[in-house]
């Protein structure tokens, strides 16, 4: 019998459909991977609170909703009654001002370099960089709305996914464990438990660290605001807190965001110096006080691994991929370590 598609064999059609389904699944996973990982963060962050409410007889899903409400109300109150020094007022910024500010600054720097090192006069830094600065500036302003939109979409999606992970996660885990053959049942149970404990401890630690870094930066920028003009303290501190998730590069990325914002608003260099000093002070505080106190379990990744993981994360999932790359890589390292330790134990 001739099929509906003439000469095309059904097997080819099935293959094409399967391929299309795989492509769609990849796109769906790609789209969902960031909110899913972010939801896992939320789950681990809220877990101690949920357990405490569960002890009082509340169901896990309801406990999460209550805690989420409290968090949202808290943030709204902070934003509504934020002290004046947090400087929430909008600063008008444009890519033209940013390019101009970068050019002015570069010319000034070049003039200073030329006066100190006359042999470098022929290099002509300004002309070479200013062309690129214009591109960077326009890119910054072109990508910012997209980034904010995708961040806002994820912000709505994350609590939704987190709610279902919290409500049904344990049942799903039990169902997965039930499928494990008897021979590996106990091993998988122990591994699930240890990995959960380690990743939970690590992610909670990192999140608390980021929140504290954000608060510290807010305070330092508040102090800087007494001496120099420091608008948008809360926004810049929040970005610095979030980007702190990325080791080594995170504080730099956060600070560069602030510097670009100030340059685009045409603020004087004193404001930028104030911001950089506040960010540096917050970073020092993080390394000396916050991180040692908060991180009970630290997953040390080699700087080269960090670079590689960031490139892969950025390439696959863009700016948000940069944020989740390190926690995901650290979690994979914890799982691999646990598998290896277990294997060693069995070999012995």
């Amino acid at each position, binding site marked *: 019998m001739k099929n509906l598609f003439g000469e095309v064999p059904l097997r080819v059609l099935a293959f094409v459909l399967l391929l299309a389904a795989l492509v769609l699944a990849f796109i769906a996973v790609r789209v969902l991977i960031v909110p899913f990982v972010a939801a896992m963060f939320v789950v681990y962050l809220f877990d101690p609170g949920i357990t405490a409410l*569960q*002890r009082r007889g509340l169901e896990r899903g309801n406990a999460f909703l209550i805690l989420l409400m409290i968090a949202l109300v808290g943030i709204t109150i902070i934003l509504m009654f934020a002290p004046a020094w947090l400087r929430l007022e909008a600063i008008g910024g444009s890519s033209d001002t940013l390019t101009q500010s970068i050019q002015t600054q570069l010319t000034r720097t070049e003039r200073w370099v030329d006066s100190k090192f006359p042999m470098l006069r022929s290099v002509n830094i300004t002309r070479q960089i200013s062309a690129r600065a214009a591109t960077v500036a326009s890119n910054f302003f072109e990508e910012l709305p997209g980034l904010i939109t995708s961040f806002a979409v994820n912000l709505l999606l994350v609590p939704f996914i987190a709610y279902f992970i919290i409500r049904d996660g344990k049942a799903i885990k039990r169902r997965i*464990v039930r499928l494990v053959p*008897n021979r590996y*049942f*106990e*091993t998988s149970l*122990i591994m699930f*438990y240890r990995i959960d404990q380690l990743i939970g401890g690590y992610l909670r630690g990192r999140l608390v660290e980021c929140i504290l870094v954000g608060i510290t930066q807010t305070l330092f920028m508040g102090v800087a605001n007494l001496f120099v003009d420091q608008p948008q303290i809360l926004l810049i501190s929040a970005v610095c807190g979030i980007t702190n998730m990325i080791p080594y590069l995170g504080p730099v990325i956060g600070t560069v965001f602030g510097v670009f914002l100030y340059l685009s608003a045409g603020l004087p260099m004193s404001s930028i110096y104030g911001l950089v000093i506040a960010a540096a002070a917050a970073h020092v505080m993080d390394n000396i006080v916050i991180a040692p106190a908060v991180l009970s379990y630290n997953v040390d990744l080699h700087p080269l691994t960090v670079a590689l993981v960031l490139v892969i994360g950025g390439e696959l999932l863009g700016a948000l991929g940069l944020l989740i790359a390190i926690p995901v890589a650290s979690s994979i390292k914890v799982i691999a370590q646990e598998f290896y330790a277990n294997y060693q134990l069995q070999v*012995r």
Partner: protein
Amino acid sequence: MRADSIWANIFRLGQRKESLAEILQTIPLFQDLSSKELKTLERVVHIRTYQPDETVFVETEPGAGMYVIRSGHVDVVLRYKSDHPLILAELQAGDFFGEMALLGDTSRSATAVARERAELIGFFHPDLIEIISLYPAMGAKISFGLAKTLAERLRYTNTQLADVSIIRGTHEEPVR
């Protein structure tokens, strides 16, 4: 080869009932739990089915927790894969084993093998930790039951060791 040893079930009470909660209630670890707590426990435990000669756990491998036999028979064997395995105990429905692993980070001291098709109720270290975290009163009852069970096993071991010492004539006065 068989051995009359501490693995023999000293807690065996007789004919067992069928319901999960009722079986659990006969185990010394869970004897003090209320019916509501037993219902909670029912939701936490894992039901596993083993075929004849299938190993439940293997000697020296890390252990996760204890098992209660719901149906069938399980042998606890030392040196299972060797030429001279030693059967430490033959357990039947209502018996339990492996409770020391509930304390965590211990390796199995013997191998457990299903002699025939057996249905086991598993209760593991992560489950105990979760109960302690969510229902502290219930967790305390189970922990106390576990302590009592281990103490009973220890007392039984001491008696057996004393008997062995007397038989061998190596009994010595304690050093003061």
